[in-house]
Every structure is written in C-alpha cells, then in structure tokens.
C-alpha cells in the first residue's frame, strides 16, 4: 500500500508539473491551452533530434530545448493570440486547437509515427528501505520528479510573493486593465506566462519521454490528467495545481491497483464532474473574501 501511494505520488507529481504550466497560462492570459501537451511533445522531439542527430550533450540539449520552448510560447502568444485578444476567449481556444493539430501533423511529417527511445536522465538501482512498515522501493526516477516539483513550487512561491515581476504577474492575472494603469507592461507579462507554460511542457516531455517514448501522442494523456489536476485544485492557485496533481496520481494508482487498470482514465473524468458539481471552485479554490 505504501509503495502504491509512493508510485501514485510520483505519477501525480508529473500531473502537478503539467498543471502548474496550464494554471500559469490560464491565470494570466485567461486561455486554456489545449496545445500544451503537443507543444511539449514537439519540443521533446527537437531535444531528441538535436541530441541524437547532432550529438549534443543531453543536458545542453535539454537547456536549448527549454529556451526554444520559451521562445515558442512567446511567439504563439504574441502572434497567435494577442491579435485576437479583443474578440473572445472562444476564438483563442480555437487557435490553441489549431496549434495542437499543426504540431501533431508536423511531428508525423518530419519524424514519422515510430516511437523513439529517449535516454533516462537518471538511472540506477532503486533505493530500498526496510522497516516495521514493510519494504519501500524508491526509484531514482521518482526522486528526480519529486525534486523537480519541489524546486519549481518553491521558485514559484518566492517569485509570486517576493519579486516585483511576480507581483506584476499576479496583478495582471487579477485585472489586466488596471494592472496596465499601474504602468505594468501587460503584453510582456502575457508573453512571460506563455514562455513559462511551454517551458514546463518541454520539461514534462523530457522527464516523461524515457517511460512513454517520443511519439506524436506521447503527452496526450498527461495533458488530460494535468487538466484534471488543475480542475481539482481550482485552476486558480499553484498550490491547488500541485496538490491536485498529487491527489489525482494517488487515486489513479489505487484505482488501477484495486479496481481495474482500465478504469484509470474513466475515474479521472468522473472526478472532474464530481468536483465541478460539489466544489465549483475546486478543492483548493479560495473564496475571495471581499466587502462591497
């Protein structure tokens, strides 16, 4: 049981990472990015390509890939979304759908549908702890995911709470127009949120790639689960995204283990519906206290 929960937390941490990126883009620009998973997929392909074809060191490749991802985020926001910002959110959603299909088509065209293997970032024998509680197996891959999630959560916390730019990000996410009157360059904050979001997608892609292999649909499931995690957490706060992901991972693992592996996806969709019915603001959504 403890091992199941641990495994669940490990997958859950991946969902949390996905959710953090989604929430950042949604909070600031108000757009749910459906192309998120495919943007990560595409960047993972590029990283795979530059490291295996051009023989660049894996870590340098990943850093280049993440910079390219940020650049992709900025260009999509600047040239794909900002020109139609004044229309409706619906039209921006359609743009993200379009990008989803374009990237998938491009990936198939360029690299084919064959699965490509991606090197493990960390490998080696798992840590095994024995004690009165039984045996706990902790894979190095799990540790990598936990450490990444912890670092990113801490960075986001410090960034949004104690830096000027972070406060500006929150100001824009609360009220774009008024943030502009404070002298905040709203456009650059929007671009930043997309740069951050797509970089997260690339990071998720790289961490997931050794397990799911590099393929055009490699992150589709992560995208759906990340979305569920974000809904669980209320789609407003980063803490919600982190805990939503972890909870979802554990539930999924327990369902898979004790009920049926085939029910995993179904259960997560049922969870979305239940949460929306009973907690419209998510499990961690805050009710804004305000006087009128």
């Amino acid at each position: 049981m403890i091992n199941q929960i641990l495994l669940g937390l490990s997958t859950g941490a991946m969902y949390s990472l996905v959710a953090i990126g989604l929430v950042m883009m949604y909070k600031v620009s108000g757009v749910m990015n459906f192309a998120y998973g495919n943007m990560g997929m595409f960047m993972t392909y590029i990283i795979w390509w530059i490291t295996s074809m051009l023989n660049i060191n894996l870590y340098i490749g990943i850093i280049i890939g993440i910079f390219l991802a940020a650049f992709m985020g900025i260009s999509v926001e600047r040239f794909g979304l900002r020109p139609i910002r004044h229309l409706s959110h619906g039209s921006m959603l359609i743009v993200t759908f379009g990008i989803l299909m374009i990237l998938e088509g491009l990936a198939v065209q360029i690299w084919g549908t064959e699965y490509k293997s991606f090197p493990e970032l960390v490998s080696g024998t798992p840590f095994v702890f024995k004690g009165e509680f039984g045996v706990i197996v902790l894979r190095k891959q799990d540790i990598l995911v936990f450490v990444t999630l912890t670092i990113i959560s801490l960075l986001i916390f410090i960034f949004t709470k104690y830096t000027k730019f972070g406060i500006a990000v929150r100001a824009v996410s609360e009220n774009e127009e008024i943030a502009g009157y404070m002298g905040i360059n709203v456009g650059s904050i929007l671009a930043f949120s997309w740069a951050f979001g797509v970089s997260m997608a690339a990071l998720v892609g790289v961490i997931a790639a050794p397990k799911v292999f590099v393929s055009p649909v490699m992150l589709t499931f992560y995208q759906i689960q990340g979305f569920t995690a974000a809904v669980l957490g209320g789609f407003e706060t980063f803490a919600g995204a982190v805990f939503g992901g972890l909870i979802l991972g554990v539930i999924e693992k327990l369902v898979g283990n004790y009920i049926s592996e085939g029910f995993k996806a179904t259960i997560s969709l049922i969870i979305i519906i239940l949460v929306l019915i009973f907690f419209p603001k998510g499990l961690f959504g805050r009710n804004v206290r305000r006087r009128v």
Partner: protein
Amino acid sequence: MTDKLGDIVISKLQVWYGPIHAVKGVDVKIEAGKITAILGANGAGKSSTLKALAGGVKYIGNILLGNETIDKLSVHKRVEKGIVLCPEGRGIFYTMSVKENLLAGAYRNKKPDFSLVFETFPILRERLKQTAGTLSGGEQQMLAIARALMSNPRYLLLDEPSLGLAPVIVNKIAEVIKRINDFGITVVLVEQNTSLALNISHYAYIFENGKVAASGSSKELLRSDIIREKYLGGAKR
C-alpha cells in the same frame, strides 16, 4: 519633480465603443498644478475621456502634454510620463495584500517609496499585511489612491473617488485630494458629486451626452444659477 510641468491639452476627442459614440469631440485643458474637475451625469463621457487620457481606450483626437503629442504612447508609457489613472469602482487587487497592491503601483520605480503614502494615509501602514478585499469601502478607496500615488504621478486622474462612500469618508477623500494637489501633483477629478468637486477644484468642465455643456472656474460655476438648479438640487447657498 523639479522640471516644469506642462499643461495637458485635449482637443477634438472622440471615443467610440462599437456603435456607441461615447465622447463626441470635447476640448479640455488641464492646467498644471491645479485641480480640474469633469462633472456630469452617468454616461456623459467623463470616464471615457479620462481613460482616453490615460491611454486605456482607443480614441480619435489629439492629446498634448506640454509640447509633446502623446497619442501614440501606450498605457504604461504614459505612466512613465507621470499620467496615472486611479480607476473607478476602486479597482484594487482584491486577493493581494495592501502592501502588494502598493508595490504593484510602484512597479515603474526602482525603489518603492512609501513615505508619501504613509504620511497621507496613516491607516494603511497598520493594514499592510491585510488582504485588500477585506478592507472597508473607504479604506479600499484610500488604497486605490495610495496605489496610484506609489507610481509617482505628476498628473493624477481620479475616476469617481467618492462613489458609494459614506459622507464622512467623502469629506476625508476631498481633504486628501487637496493635500495631494498641495504636493504639486496636478489632479483631474471625474465626479458625479458636483458640490464636492466644485468646492475643491479650481476649474471645471460639465459634460452632457459626450459634449462639454459648460466650463469655467469652479467658483463661478458654483455661483451660476443654471448649474445650481441642474446639478446642485437648486439649493440656495
């Protein structure tokens, strides 16, 4: 703030919201160092004029700051020029703390300077850690003005600062506005509360249906019979 302030001259300003013609060609002159009031009923185009001046809405027409045309400047560039709008309906960041609201206001400054704000609004110093949404209505309005002051404005545009506040608080806000002006900040005050605005401003414009219906020094307007009848409820003073 040592360099000489230029006047702001708005000429032939028009604002459209889709098919709605909100401002139909107004000319307003805002003298540096003074309080200029823009008065009128709901939908007269006051707020739209103010937003156009801050760069928040698209407009046709010409706005001069000193000798310089600022029509092409975006909102945050105008903030750098010292034109700062304090939006209507308080418009504070409700989920953020008082301090974070003030810091957001000081976004353009290298080092946030709280001294002017704390001197003007001592109450905010005690509330720094409180979530802005839990402040009382009057405190929220003070926070909104304080946040605008954090941007080091040379021209402060106040949109309906007395809206929905108790009379005692309204008087306090009026005093604050006068004090801000004493610091050398030019104030543009959009108000529906005509008597308040005429009493603290030097010069006033009265808007009707997107046009300037009357203008003059506030003292003269206060004495004028038509204004008294139409906007001050006919009260003889």
